[in-house]
């Protein structure tokens, strides 16, 4: 009973004539809607996601069919407005389909690491003591590897393939997310209202659900969005090295690598897949910045 009283009194009932209480998340949304940069990058990202999702509709050809006669056509060729790649396949079509794997390989590892690392960090930060030490020292070991090196090493020994690249990146992103989650949870746990909830008999789960989680979610999410940008660059980089997605499947990193030798023939066509990687990762970075200032989150490195 006592805890029910606590959680219901956490938000005071608004007096009849007063203005309605505006929630934290609605405030964040309002601030985001007033930020032109965030709106623009959200629209661009939405466009990229739509192009990838509806690739069969927006593309102008088949992703695997090409003719050697039309290989490496320049930008603006009739029928191939972005030119063709080294196999004579329509580049626009390949870029559309390529977005599918590139976006998935960017988002899935962060999601997976968010679940594992976020959970571990919350647990370690809330439990404290020995549990915290064991988890965090374990993470220190993985922190000893530069992230690119660890991803390449894991992918290198597991062999190439989309799944292995995603797995490698997920492992790489667990330690930083754990550390962020642990830091903010440990800070929140020391606050008076958490102490009050515990003193009035809330169970650990209730305290976590109603008092800790709402306060730590913001910083963790902001950090995760900034990781998506890195994840997209790294996953395409793994494919670029021949460690991720394998040709002829379309993926921006693979396409960039395949077109690398064509740089002397069709320099602008060869640079296009990389441009997609850059624009997408830039959008995620700017969105993370927008979220950060809208949520008023301060994060260390």
């Amino acid at each position: 009973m006592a805890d029910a009283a606590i959680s219901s009194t956490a938000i005071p009932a608004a007096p009849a004539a007063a203005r309605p209480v505006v929630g934290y998340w609605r405030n964040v949304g309002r601030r985001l809607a007033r930020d032109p940069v965030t709106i623009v990058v959200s629209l661009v990202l939405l466009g990229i996601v739509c192009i990838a999702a509806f690739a069969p509709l927006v593309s102008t050809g088949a992703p695997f069919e090409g003719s050697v006669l039309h290989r490496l056509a320049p930008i603006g060729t009739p029928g191939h407005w972005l030119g063709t790649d080294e196999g004579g396949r329509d580049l626009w079509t390949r870029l559309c389909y390529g977005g599918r794997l590139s976006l998935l390989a960017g988002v899935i590892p962060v999601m997976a690491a968010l679940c594992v690392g976020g959970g571990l960090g919350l647990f370690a930060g809330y439990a404290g003591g020995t549990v915290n030490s064991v988890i965090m020292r374990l993470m220190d070991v993985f922190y000893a590897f530069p992230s690119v090196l660890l991803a390449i090493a894991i992918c290198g020994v597991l062999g190439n393939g989309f799944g292995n690249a995603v797995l490698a990146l997920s492992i790489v992103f667990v330690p930083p997310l754990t550390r962020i989650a642990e830091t903010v949870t440990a800070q929140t746990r020391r606050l008076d209202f958490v102490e009050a909830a515990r003193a009035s008999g809330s169970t650990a789960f209730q305290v976590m659900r109603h008092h800790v989680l709402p306060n730590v979610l913001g910083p963790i999410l902001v950090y995760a969005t900034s990781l998506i940008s890195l994840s997209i660059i790294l996953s395409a980089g793994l494919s670029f090295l021949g460690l991720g997605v394998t040709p002829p499947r379309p993926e921006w990193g693979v396409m960039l690598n395949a077109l690398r030798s064509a740089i002397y023939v069709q320099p602008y066509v060869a640079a296009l897949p990389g441009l997609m990687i850059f624009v997408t990762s830039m959008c995620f970075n700017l969105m993370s910045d927008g979220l950060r200032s809208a949520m008023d989150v301060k994060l260390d490195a």
Partner: protein
Amino acid sequence: MFQFAVRRLLLAVPVLFGVSLVVFALVHIAPGDPIDLLLPPEASPEVVAQVKALFGFDKPLYVQYFLWLRSALTGNFGVSIFNAQPVLGQLLVALGHTFLLAIPAAFLGFGLGVALGLTAALNHGRWPDKLCSAITTTGVSLPNYWAAIVLVLFAAVLHPWLPAQGIWPDGVPLLGQLRYLVLPVGALSLIPMGVIGRFTRATAIEVLNQEFVSALTAKGLTRLPVLRHVCKNAAPPVLALMGLQFGYLLGGSILVETVFNWPGSGYLLNLAIFRRDIPILQATVVVLAFFFVILNLVVDVAQAAIDPRLRR
């Protein structure tokens, strides 16, 4: 101070032990037997056993680990499966080439980053801030392997100004050697420039909002001495991040080295992966991680030397 350094050093030992364990485990969970690549499929079982014994693959895993650790600690990383040459020699040459890129890239990236970050912070909210922030955000968003390709495109393909591939051949004079460094160093410096620039800006803005800045200004100090105080206060966290970034440069140069066919440690690692050359792979990853741990240690101690509050 000395106590802090010793304690920090002791903390690094279990981490290094963990690192060696991870690298060893990593290679042995890999599918595929490296022996299969060396020998033709029709090789007799005796030959297979002989080669396995030669590389120590016939012993139980934990014995392999301790043997590997013991020899690694004395600098003996075995011989390459691919060319039977000692690993250490090849690794040292490659590391030398990587440092040749990483050190100038660090100086260039950190210098530009600090300049851009400070300019942005001092003009917070005005156009120089927006311009500098746009540059630094571009730096962190650029895939450096693509930036490398674009640099090659402009400075080697469209305009034949600079060499686009590899390290200089023997007999090239010093000035000519520098020409080979320009493009790879430029591509490598983008990420540190962006990361340090963004972090310098955030840190400097935070320091500028502290009360001592208003107090100093109220006391009548001019802009420059105030700036000196701001820099002193913002320096420790920025320095710490620079240490980390230098580690990332060493470990993350693999993509840029691949684009430029630069014979560094990343290129070596890439070759080792495709040849399934386990001794080289293990040695490269362990040595780079070791550098990274030591670098972190040095940074922590340096930070504590600058700011006594950190000596907890």
